[in-house]
């Protein structure tokens, strides 16, 4: 699995459960690839920030997160 495959897999991880094979392939890649580890955290952050944005498009009422 290279970075292109790994990032596609991590994007799909937001949509469905990965198969055992995909999880293993991904984990093997992530151990040796710091940029892809960053990507995984960032994709989760995108979802989190979109939800925050959806709740309040202007942020005026947004509570400081703990």
């Amino acid at each position, binding site marked *: 699995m290279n970075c292109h495959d790994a990032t596609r897999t991590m994007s799909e991880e937001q949509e469905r459960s990965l198969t055992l094979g995909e999880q293993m392939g991904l984990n093997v890649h992530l151990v040796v690839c710091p940029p892809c580890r*960053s990507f995984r955290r960032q994709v989760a952050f995108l979802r989190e920030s*979109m939800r925050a944005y959806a709740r309040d498009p202007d942020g005026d009422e947004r509570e400081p997160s703990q």
Partner: protein
Amino acid sequence: MDNTDASAATSSDAADALNDPQFVADLRRRMVRFATLQLSDPHLAEDAVQEAFIGALRGSRSFAGRAAYRSWVFGILRHKIADQLRARTRYAAAPVNEVEPDPTPDAFFEPDGHWTEDAAPADWGDPQAALRDDQFWRVFEACLDHLPGKQARVFMMREFVELESPEICSAVGISTSNLNVSLYRARLRLRGCLEQHWFADGVVRS
């Protein structure tokens, strides 16, 4: 009607917001833009926005201020859009299976599938801190605006309207794999845009 003093005060805040033509016009414009992107039909978008405003008037809720009112009415609009899109899935045509051309992945990866030096994601540290920063949200909105049309549409359906993948596939008429490609490209672009315009300063390249 047995309003206490407190609820009279909060509802007058909402009334005050609704009496400000600039506030209403600006809110309306943003809602129509969002609804049009989601529904691909200006008339249905206008209707949904109108219904959202009416729904907000009917709701016997008190508002702490303009921002709370805006969140409330935007929330109603999201539900209207989700209902529209779900209803539409019943009449969906056969999937057209087309992905708009987008060179993004090629620009981010070497031919062997590894990140290019410029595109490799950096460590963003504690990105949650950005959620409290008004300037971050302006950058975020600008990055969303820069997504290509179809990517923006399915990404917003997934992450903003919070529809499930099968609902989006029926509403847009695409296959699951095409949806996943569009979502993947939107995520690649969006994170790249945020890194370039917000997180690039002060982060360590990993």
